[in-house]
C-alpha cells in the first residue's frame, strides 16, 4: 500500500490582496488565508493515486497555528492524515531553510510509515519560486520530477513511477524509481467539490503538531531566518505607467493616432520573421 505525503502551505490569496494607494504597500489583512491553489491540485492528485492503487495520503505543512485550516481543507479533499510543524524557530525561512525543516518532519513521518511518494504543488502563490519541492527531493536524495502534468503509473511493487512532464513545447514521458517527488502543474486535475463525509471529518480534524524539539537531529542553525541564505533587502512598488495619455477625437482620429504611435516602433515590423 502506498504512503503518499503531500507538502502544502497556507498562503494569503494574492488575487484579492489590496494595495494601499497612498503608501503603495500591501494590505495583508485584506487577503484571506487559503490553501495554496497549486497544493490543492497536489493533494487531489495524491488522493487519485490512492484511489487507483490503494494506500494512505498524509499532508504536511509548516506554519503558524492558524495554518491548521489548510490541513483541514486537504482532509476535505480526501487526505487521511495531517501533520504540522509549528515553532517560532521556523519563522522567516527561505526556500532552503523551509526544505530543511520539512525534510526533518518527513523523516519523522517516514519512520512511522515509510514514504513512497511525495507530492507538491508547482509553487506557492506568495513565494512564486517552485524551489521547495526540488529542495526536499535533494535533501532526501530522491529524484525530483517537476512540471508533472499527468501521472501514468505508480508501481510500488516494482518500485517505479511514470509521469508526463510538461516542457515549453510539449511534454516528456519519464520513468523514475520510487520513492520520488512530483511537483505538479495546475492542469493535472480539477479539484471537485468535497463530499460531505470528508467535510464532516475535516471540521473536527486535529493534526499532529510538532515543534522543533519533537523532531530528531535538527541543526537549529539551518532553521528559519538564521538558516536562510537569501534575505529580502528592500521592497518597493513596481513601476507602473500612471495612467498614460487618453486619446480623444472621433473613432477615425483615435485609430489613426494609435497607428502613428505604433509605427514609431516600426523596427518591430522590419524585424519580423528575422528574429528567432
Amino acid at each position, binding site marked *: 500500500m502506498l504512503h503518499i505525503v503531500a507538502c502544502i502551505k497556507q498562503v494569503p490569496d*494574492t*488575487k484579492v*490582496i489590496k494595495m494601499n494607494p497612498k503608501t503603495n504597500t*500591501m494590505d495583508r489583512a485584506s487577503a484571506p488565508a487559503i490553501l495554496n491553489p497549486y497544493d490543492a491540485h497536489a493533494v487531489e492528485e495524491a488522493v487519485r493515486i490512492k484511489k487507483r492503487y490503494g494506500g494512505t495520503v498524509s499532508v504536511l505543512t509548516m506554519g503558524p497555528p492558524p495554518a491548521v485550516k489548510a490541513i483541514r481543507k486537504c482532509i476535505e479533499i480526501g487526505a487521511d492524515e495531517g501533520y504540522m510543524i509549528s515553532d517560532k524557530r521556523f519563522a522567516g525561512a527561505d*526556500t*532552503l531553510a523551509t526544505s530543511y525543516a520539512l525534510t526533518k518532519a518527513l523523516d519523522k513521518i517516514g519512520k512511522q510509515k515509510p514514504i513512497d511518494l511525495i507530492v507538491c504543488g508547482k509553487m506557492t502563490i*506568495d513565494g*512564486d*519560486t517552485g*524551489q521547495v519541492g*526540488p*529542495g526536499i*527531493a*535533494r535533501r532526501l536524495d530522491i*529524484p*525530483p*520530477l*517537476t*512540471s508533472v502534468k499527468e501521472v501514468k503509473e505508480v508501481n510500488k511493487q516494482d518500485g517505479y513511477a511514470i509521469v508526463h*512532464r510538461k*516542457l*515549453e*513545447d*510539449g511534454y*516528456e*514521458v*519519464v*520513468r*523514475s*524509481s520510487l520513492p*520520488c517527488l512530483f511537483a505538479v502543474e*495546475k492542469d493535472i486535475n480539477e479539484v471537485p467539490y468535497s463530499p460531505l463525509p470528508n467535510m464532516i471529518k475535516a471540521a473536527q480534524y486535529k493534526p499532529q503538531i510538532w515543534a522543533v524539539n519533537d523532531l530528531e537531529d535538527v541543526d537549529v542553525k539551518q532553521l528559519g531566518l538564521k538558516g536562510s*541564505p*537569501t*534575505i*529580502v*533587502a*528592500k*521592497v*518597493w*512598488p*513596481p513601476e*507602473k*505607467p500612471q*495612467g498614460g*495619455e*487618453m*486619446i480623444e477625437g472621433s*473613432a477615425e482620429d*483615435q*485609430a489613426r493616432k*494609435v*497607428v502613428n504611435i*505604433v*509605427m514609431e*516602433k516600426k523596427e*518591430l515590423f522590419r524585424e*519580423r*520573421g528575422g*528574429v528567432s
Partner: protein
Amino acid sequence: MSFEDYRGTWVFLEVKEGKIAQVSLELLGAGRELADKRGDQLGGILIGEGVKELATDAFTYGADVVYVYDDPIFKHYRTEPFMEALMHCTNKYKPEVILYGATSKGKDLASAVATDLPTGLTADTTLLDIEEDTGLLLASRPAFGGNIMATILCKKYRPQMATVRPKVMKALEPEPGRKGEIVEESLSLKEEDVRTKVLEIVLDTQKRVRIDEADIVVAGGKGLGSQEGFELIHQLAKVLGGAVGASRDVVESGWIDHHHQVGQTGVTVTPKIYFAIGISGSIQHLVGMQNSGLIIAINHDPDAPIFQASHYGIVGDAFEIVPLLIKEFENVLGLGDVSHVGKV
C-alpha cells in the same frame, strides 16, 4: 568559506533544438555587465550530447570561457546528471555568480544545485546588479503576485544564484569571430546509476502561439461580448504579425484555449507592444502584462483599471475602433508584406 576564491559570473547555457536557448543568450548579455563591473570573466556552462561546437555561439554573445560536459548521458535533460555536472564544475572553478533561465529546465536545475551546494537562489529575477567592490548580487523580482518588487541578497554564501525570466534581459549584438576558451570536463557517471529515464519526448505538432515570445500581443477580454466578437482580436493580431492574448474570463468562457491566457495564472508576457481590448484589468491580468514596452488599452468603461496601467487609452467601442485600426494598419504596413511573416 573564503569569498576571494569565488570569481566570475557564469551562465547555464540551456540547449534547445540544437541551439543555445534565447534566454541563455540574454543572460550572457546580463552576465557580461556583471562580470565587467567586477573585472572578471564571463563563463558559460554547456551540458549535453554533441554540444561542444555551440561554445562558439556563446563567445559570439559575450562569453570568455565555456565549460563543456559533452556525453551521451546528457542527451536529455535530467535533474540529477545535470546537477552533478554543475556541482563538479562549481566546486572546481568557484564562480561568484551563476545565472539560469527561469525555464522549466533552468528552474529545476537551479533548485537542485542550490540545495546541494548549499546556497541562496532567487527565482524569476527581472533586475540584476552587482556591488562593484563586494561582489554582492542584487537580484530583484516581483513578489506577492506582482504586487511589490523585492531585492534579494545572499550575503553569506557563494556562489550567488538566480533564475532570470526570459525576455527581460537583452542579448548583446553578436560579434562574429569573437574567441574564447573551451574547457572540456567530464564526469564518470553511469547510465545505470541515474534513477530517471526519459522514455519519450512528445513535441507539439500544432503550431502554437507562443505569446511569451511575441513582440506584439493583441489581447481581448469579455468586453468583446462573444466568441464571434473575439474574432476581431485574431484579425488585428494577424495584420500586426502578433500573437493573440486573452483575459482569464475569456478563457473560462471557452472562446480560446488557456495557452493564450495572460496573467498570474496564465502566461507572463513582455512584448514591445501590448493591446488590451475589452479588458477591464484585474490585478491578476495586470501582473501578467505590466512590463510590456508600450501598452494601449481600448475599453468602453472610462473607469476600467486597465487605463491606469496603460501608456495610451481609448474610451470607446471596440467594434467601431478595432476595424478602423485593422484597415489603417493594412494600409500602412501593406497586407501582402505581412501575411507570410510574423512570429506566431
